[in-house]
C-alpha cells in the first residue's frame, strides 16, 4: 500500500519508507507469536498515512472480532483474473475462526482448533494433513482480508470518514469493575505499578476467563 501511495504521489515522503521495514512482524514478531504481523504492519501503515488513532482502533477491533479467513481470496482467484498466484493459489472454503485477540498465538491457535489440526477434514482433503501448509494458506488469505480492510479504511479516511471504533464489551466491564485500574481495588500493588494496563484488548476468552 505504501508503495502504491508513493507511486501515486511521487513528491510525497512515502517513497522514503523502506520496503520490508515491517517484515520483522512476521509470525507475531519474528515468530514470537506475539502481535499478529498484519496487525503490526497495518497499524504502522495507518499511523503514517492517516495519523489517526481511531482508524487504528477500528482496524484492530475489527480484527479481534472478525472470522478469518473469508473466501474472498479464493473467489478472486477462481474468477480467473488473478493468475500470478496460480502455483500458490488460495484454497476453497477454509475453516474460519474468530481470533478474539491480536496475538498470532491465539489467532492461529483458534484457527487450528476450528480446523481440527492435522486430522481435520479440510486439512486432510486440501493438504493431505500438512497442517503447516494449511496454516500458510489460512494466514495468506487472512492477509488478503486485512489488506482489503486497511485499504477501505484509508480510502474512507481520505474521504473524510473517521470511524468510531467499537471495542469488545469486556473492555468496558474490565475498566469499570476495577480489574485493571478502574473503580475499586483488584490488587493495589498491581494498580500502583500499572494503573491502566487493560487498554483496549478483549479481556475475556483471551487472557481472562
Amino acid at each position, binding site marked *: *500500500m*505504501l*508503495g*502504491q*501511495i508513493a507511486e*501515486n*504521489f511521487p*513528491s*510525497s*515522503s*512515502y517513497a*522514503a519508507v523502506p*520496503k*520490508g*521495514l*515491517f*517484515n520483522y*512482524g*512476521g509470525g507475531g514478531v519474528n515468530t514470537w507469536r506475539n502481535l*499478529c*504481523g*498484519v496487525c503490526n*504492519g497495518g497499524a504502522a*501503515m495507518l*499511523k*503514517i*498515512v*492517516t*495519523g489517526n488513532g481511531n482508524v487504528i482502533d477500528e482496524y484492530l477491533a475489527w480484527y479481534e472480532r472478525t472470522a478469518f479467513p473469508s473466501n*474472498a*481470496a479464493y473467489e*478472486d482467484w477462481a474468477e480467473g483474473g*488473478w493468475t*500470478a*498466484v496460480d*502455483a*500458490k493459489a*488460495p484454497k476453497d472454503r477454509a475453516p474460519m475462526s474468530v481470533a478474539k485477540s491480536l496475538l498470532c498465538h491465539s489467532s492461529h491457535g483458534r484457527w487450528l482448533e476450528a480446523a481440527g489440526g492435522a486430522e481435520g477434514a479440510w486439512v486432510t482433503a486440501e493438504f493431505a494433513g500438512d497442517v503447516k501448509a494449511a496454516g*500458510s494458506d489460512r*494466514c*495468506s*488469505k*487472512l*492477509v*488478503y*482480508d*486485512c*489488506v*482489503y480492510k*486497511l*485499504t*477501505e479504511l*484509508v*480510502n474512507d479516511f*481520505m*474521504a473524510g470518514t473517521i470511524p468510531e471504533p467499537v471495542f469488545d464489551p469486556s473492555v468496558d466491564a474490565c475498566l469499570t469493575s476495577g480489574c485493571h485500574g478502574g473503580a475499586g481495588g483488584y490488587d493495589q500493588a498491581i494498580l500502583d505499578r500499572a494503573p491502566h494496563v487493560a487498554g483496549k484488548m478483549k479481556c475475556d476468552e483471551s487472557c481472562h476467563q
Partner: protein
Amino acid sequence: MENSKLSRRQFLGGTAAVAAASVLPAVTSAAPAVATPVTTYPDNSIQGASWIPLDPAAMARKGYEIIKGITGGGQSG
C-alpha cells in the same frame, strides 16, 4: 647553555601543542554540519481532494502475493 635546555615537562608540552596544531586544520576545515530535512508522517500533501483512491482488491492481492513469496519487496504479515 643550561638555560637553553628544555625540561622534560616543557618538551612534552611543546610536542603536544604541535600535535594538536597539526590536527586542528583537519577539524576546522571539516564541512559544516548541515541540518538534514526531517521526514514527518503523515504527509499532508496526499490528503484531501488530491487523494487517489486505492483499489482494495489490488492491494489485497499484493498482500497475498507478498506473504506467499510470489512478489518481493513489500511488507509481510
